[in-house]
């Protein structure tokens, strides 16, 4: 079983993930329409690029925008969640040892203590964000089961990872469950609204171009996001 989930199934998950996110991006860009969107994407490009870069960078910076600053606790949770989601699986020592064994290469590995901290940060953030969905009326009204499912899918590899590492060390069934959860996460990214993994950059860049090209970008220093 372990061989299967870390072999063919892993290949399948990575295939769906990589092809999926490329397809999502291509579909997005192909669906942009200068006349319908009323943005001259391919003319006035320098203003567009400037607007897009600003729009992405401001929002990638913790507390870099008015909205982030107005909601400091949410911002903290969101950045903790996303940093953990991205960097823990990539830079975990155990993953890199595995990579080295299977495919003959590995990335730089972070200290285990940091990986544990990030993992706990991901789980804690997911739990607190779920609680926020229940507690705040303005979030509750727009929340559906789908939103909890997304949080669950994102947090599952981290919960099972911790269990496999500490609670049932060297337990193959838990390792298998952990790998399956990771693969589910990878597959879910292009197929669900977790596609904001890449579409965040697309929509942010689009709005940045809109403001940069059309909505005042040529007559001002740009939106102070």
């Amino acid at each position, binding site marked *: 079983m372990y061989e299967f989930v870390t072999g063919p199934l892993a290949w399948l998950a990575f295939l769906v993930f990589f092809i999926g996110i490329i397809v999502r991006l291509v579909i997005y860009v192909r*669906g942009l329409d200068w006349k319908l969107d009323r943005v001259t994407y391919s003319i*006035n490009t320098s203003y567009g690029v400037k607007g897009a870069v600003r729009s992405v960078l401001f929002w990638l910076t913790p507390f870099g925008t008015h909205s982030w600053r107005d909601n400091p606790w*949410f911002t903290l949770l969101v950045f903790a969640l996303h940093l953990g989601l991205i960097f823990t699986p990539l830079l975990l020592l155990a993953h890199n040892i595995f990579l080295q064994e299977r495919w003959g290469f590995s990335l730089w590995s972070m200290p285990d203590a940091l990986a544990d901290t990030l993992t706990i940060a991901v789980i804690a953030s997911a739990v607190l964000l779920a609680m926020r969905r229940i507690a705040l009326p303005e979030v509750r009204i*727009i929340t559906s089961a789908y939103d909890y499912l997304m949080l669950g899918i994102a947090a599952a590899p981290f919960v099972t990872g911790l269990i496999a590492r500490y609670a049932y060390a060297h337990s193959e069934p838990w390792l298998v469950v952990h790998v399956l959860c990771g693969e589910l996460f990878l597959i879910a990214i292009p197929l669900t609204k977790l*596609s904001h993994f890449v*579409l965040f950059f697309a929509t942010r860049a*689009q709005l940045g171009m809109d403001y940069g090209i059309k909505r*005042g970008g040529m007559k001002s220093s740009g939106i102070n996001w």
Partner: protein
Amino acid sequence: MPEGILCNKNKVTTLEHLQALLSDKSGKQYYQEMNNLDVDSKALWDLVQKTCKSRIRTWLDICTHCGLCADSCFYYLANHKDPQQVPSYKIQSTLGQIVRRKGQVDNAFMQMAMDTAFSKCTCCTRCGIYCPLGIDTGIMFSYLRGLLFSQGFTPWEMKIGTGMHRVFRAQMDVTTEDWVDTCSWMAEETADDWPGLEIPVDKQNADIIYTVNAREPKHYPEDIAQAAILFHVAGENWTVPSEGWEETSLAMFAGDWEACKMQVENVYAAMERLKPKRMVVTECGHAYRATVIEGPYWAGLKSGKTPIESLHYVEWVAEALRSGKLKIDPAKKIKEPVTYQDSCNYIRNGGLWEAARYIMSQIAEDFREMTPSREHNFCCGGGGGLNGIGRYREQRNIGLKVKRDQILATGAKLVVAPCHNCWDAIRDMEEVYEIGIRWSFLKPLLINMVEVPEHLKPAE
């Protein structure tokens, strides 16, 4: 398929149709007929498939329902944080449903969507700059208004407004003759005090072609006279076109994109005909947004720009002050505390906040910013056509509270509002809430404080 006599899917293209609508007081019959208006789901879905492409679909799909848009919306704040006023909720329960249900929606749904699109959103686009994913709900509501319009679900005043644009190429029944006569009348009246003042109509190759809001010739002709005085004092070589003088677009508020195109092409034709160097738009936010920002796209201009460079009035004033064409008498600057209403359409969506600040630095001794201000400012409460829609007057008045409190917090009693919509909303705010404020366009303030060159002064 039941269609009313007044409320139907047809566009208003004749004066008779327009008059029939106007004679229906407050749209009583119109809204009664709307209750029986069928939804052509197939046509609706066809339109969605043709026009709802990846930008809007992705916005609808990837919204993570975080709720950060809530506090950005003045309606949410003005309505005691009613969760039903959260922008994400409002758009997902209207446009989102139309897309998910592939256009299979009924009359009640369409009326709910119309009420939401016009009385719970002014398309101010503030939420768009507070969304981590860059989801611009204001843009989606504008798009939704277009879908609703195509099915005949638009407020009575919007139906009339689009008809006005189609019949008169103006938001009001002002004909070419009315307009030209008003200009001559104002020139004659004003020339007594300002020797040599003219309002040149259809002058070729002028430096500036000046275009207005139809309300000015219709209700506030003195605004045209004031513009003429300031151009005269500044020594500008300017003109107004006999045709293509109207900048506004109720069609944009209604989502009647065909009429939007007709309207701006009329202005662009004047540019082509008279070959001026630049255009200056009067103190109106949505007029500038329609004709200068969005208009080139409706007209299919691939540059995304108007045929000649176009300026909002604040840009011209700032430039005239910087270059010395207009000089302010320091003794006549505004002494009392004064604040400035940043219009969504030319500030947030037009980037002109610095021009406005420069003007205020030159004309006021105690300028006080609202909080928030510039591109983060709140809508006046009357944008997106809301000021003119009787059906939603109550909701509009509730929405005004946010701007009211912003103004009060500055301590200023005078609000400079170089935008017709904002000006109206603030006037109505005073009527409803009686907070003891005054409001003004820039022109009358400037006329009182510019230094007039000797040769332009009337003989004693």
